[in-house]
């Protein structure tokens, strides 16, 4: 049920922005990773089309770019849902039961970690410690943070996004 196969829909403006980013970093030592970060901010993910532009712009082989993108978990080859649901599986959250929370969300959305619902609404992500361990177990939906989550809270949390 993943929407990984949707065609690339980058706009002219996005491409212009990316080219500016590339220009800014050209000639800099170790520029690839900073450029990838900024490219992901622009497009939301790093499809092969975007990697190609970067490869040509920075004059770095595409295979090397691809190798870097797939090495780091922050970089995504696939678009995310409108709402990105992340459950922390860091130690502090895990010992407080975040494993159960993520299982319940998988059931609820019918997707696995790393996937996106067919309507493109929700994607599910397992993160490692967002630094709010004091509020464990923690989950986030886009920028909103929910602390001390119990399975019973999930109805209320998802109700906010299921309009």
């Amino acid at each position, binding site marked *: 049920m993943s929407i990984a196969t949707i065609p690339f829909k980058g706009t002219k403006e996005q491409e212009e922005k990316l080219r500016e980013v590339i220009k800014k970093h050209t000639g800099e*030592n*170790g*520029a*690839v*990773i*900073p450029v*990838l*970060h900024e490219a992901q901010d622009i497009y939301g993910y790093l499809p092969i089309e975007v990697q190609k532009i970067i490869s040509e712009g920075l004059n770095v082989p595409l295979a090397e770019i691809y*190798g*870097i993108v797939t*090495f*780091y*978990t*922050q*970089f995504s080859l696939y678009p995310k849902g409108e709402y990105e649901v992340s459950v922390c*599986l*860091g*130690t*502090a*959250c*895990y*010992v*407080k039961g975040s494993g159960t929370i993520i299982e319940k969300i998988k059931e609820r959305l019918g997707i696995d970690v790393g996937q996106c619902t067919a309507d493109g609404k929700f994607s599910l992500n397992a*993160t*490692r*410690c*967002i*630094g*709010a*361990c*004091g*509020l*464990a177990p*923690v989950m986030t939906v886009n920028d909103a*943070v929910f*602390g001390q989550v119990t399975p019973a809270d999930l109805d209320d949390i998802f109700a906010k996004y299921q309009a």
Partner: protein
Amino acid sequence: MKSLAELQALRDCTLDKLNLRKDRKEGIRIVVGMATCGIAAGARPVLEALEREVKAQKLDNVMVMQTGCIGMCRLEPIVEVYEPGKEKITYVHMTADKVSKIVSEHIINGRPVAEYSVGTDKAQSVNDTVFYAKQKRVALRNCGVINPENIDEYIAFDGYQALAKALTEMSREDVIQTVKDSGLRGRGGGGFPTGMKWDFTYKAVGDKKYVCCNADEGDPGAFMDRSVLEGDPHAVIEAMAIAGYAVGADQGYIYIRAEYPIAVERLKIAIGQAREYGLLGKDIFGTGFNFDLDIRLGAGAFVCGEETALLTSIEGNRGEPRPRPPFPAVKGLWGKPTLLNNVETYANIAQIILNGADWFASMGTEKSKGTKVFALGGKINNTGLVEIPMGTTLREIIEEIGGGIPNGKKFKAAQTGGPSGGCIPASLIDTPIDYDSLMAIGSMMGSGGLIVMDEDNCMVDIAKFFLEFTVDESCGKCSPCRIGTKRLLEILTKITDGKGTMEDLDKLENLCYAIKSSALCGLGQTAPNPVLSTLRYFRDEYEAHVKDKKCPAHVCKALAQYKINPEKCKGCSLCARQCPVNAISGEIKSPFVIDQDKCIKCGACQSTCKFGAIDKE
């Protein structure tokens, strides 16, 4: 900034302007904890409400500021009020609704609001709580005190004085000697003597050298470095400049994980301000010393916390480790001599330079000097950030500072060192926390994550959890780690599924030692530690899984048995209708039973029963 005099003049002016002077006659200062966890708990609306209210009441002599981590995560959002000549008052679990009462009662009428404060029957400061009594704040000295986005406040608290002192009064050798004499050891996990590392880099030959900061904070469940960067970013910047002077570098990099957007933002602001003041850049304090800093974002790979991988990642490549030697001090970033220290290590430096090596060495134990910051999490009442003198016992941390285990449960073990570390069982609760004592019991200091577990946590499951982490994070470069950790995980899964044999336990142990001795980098070399330490202290729990096919903590799903208690069962049939595999049968109004052979342990029946008649064993 051209001279020490200029710095001091600025300090004095800020002390007056921002109601920071301890002996001031008037002027109230209100701070709101706005680190990640405060913001997550809802601090922003509180700050906004305070600003609005203070403005509406035309309280010109009241300053409202954001600050970093006050440290008591459990009580966030936190607001503190500093009045002249009095102990501060700490308000906890703040909401925007509580603001008007605090402003009208406390700020205007001078009557602190006891019910909102941390005290139980009177208005109190956190300083009066047991949580703070045993703490000593060196690395965290400014966190939760100053506004991290205002360099003037850092300067008001003696910021950049140490840099001025180092540059104008000390030789490079003096600086290194002072750090050596202080006994400071690396806070990133390894515990290597910091002064020695500085000396190696100083002595290494190179036309260019670099100073780097490890802010990758990979241990999941640890947030010490984040708190320092969010609460006191200049402390790290100043220390890196001092290090640059000592080792002979003019460029530094801070490698920080992208998962910490607030820390990144505050660092950017801080670097910008330091440049503006001439505290970074050319000819600092008119001494001819040049130093500048850049930020590099990590991208979610635990192995990039390892020093050689980190440097490879800054160079823009896949962050794979390489064999050492050569050590970074000799051949680091772009092949040049490079100094790499952890955030907390740096956070101690300015204090050491200002107060002297002896002052620092007077804290802690013989071989572990100073203090250590811990992120206290898991099954503990006072989750939060604590800084304690080395040598404090685990008992003091858990029972006093941490306020014990919630819900009257029993303390079982504490994990330090994260996925590279080990557990400390309840029987060793009197172990002093220092590098060597922890090593001796098969755990390690680590970077400061301290996760508390109670009787409801299964130690085999915890070992499996860490192995899942390392399998995921192994970079795959060498086979002992890539394949070995997978095998470890398979055996652990077999055990938690109730299919393990006694031979598996031996196999597990042998494989652990094989991986430890042959993996290329620290990740693989330490990955077996959680397995070895749980095997050492909780072998009975492993055996229960293997021999009795039972999980004593009732965590491992495959070993759980759901049973209907005939005394409590009302025979309503609700559970039977919920069961996905029709494992439950019975007659209405008499007790139902579960067919264990059919049951897939989904737990659906237990959550449906309205009478609490279904137990998990």
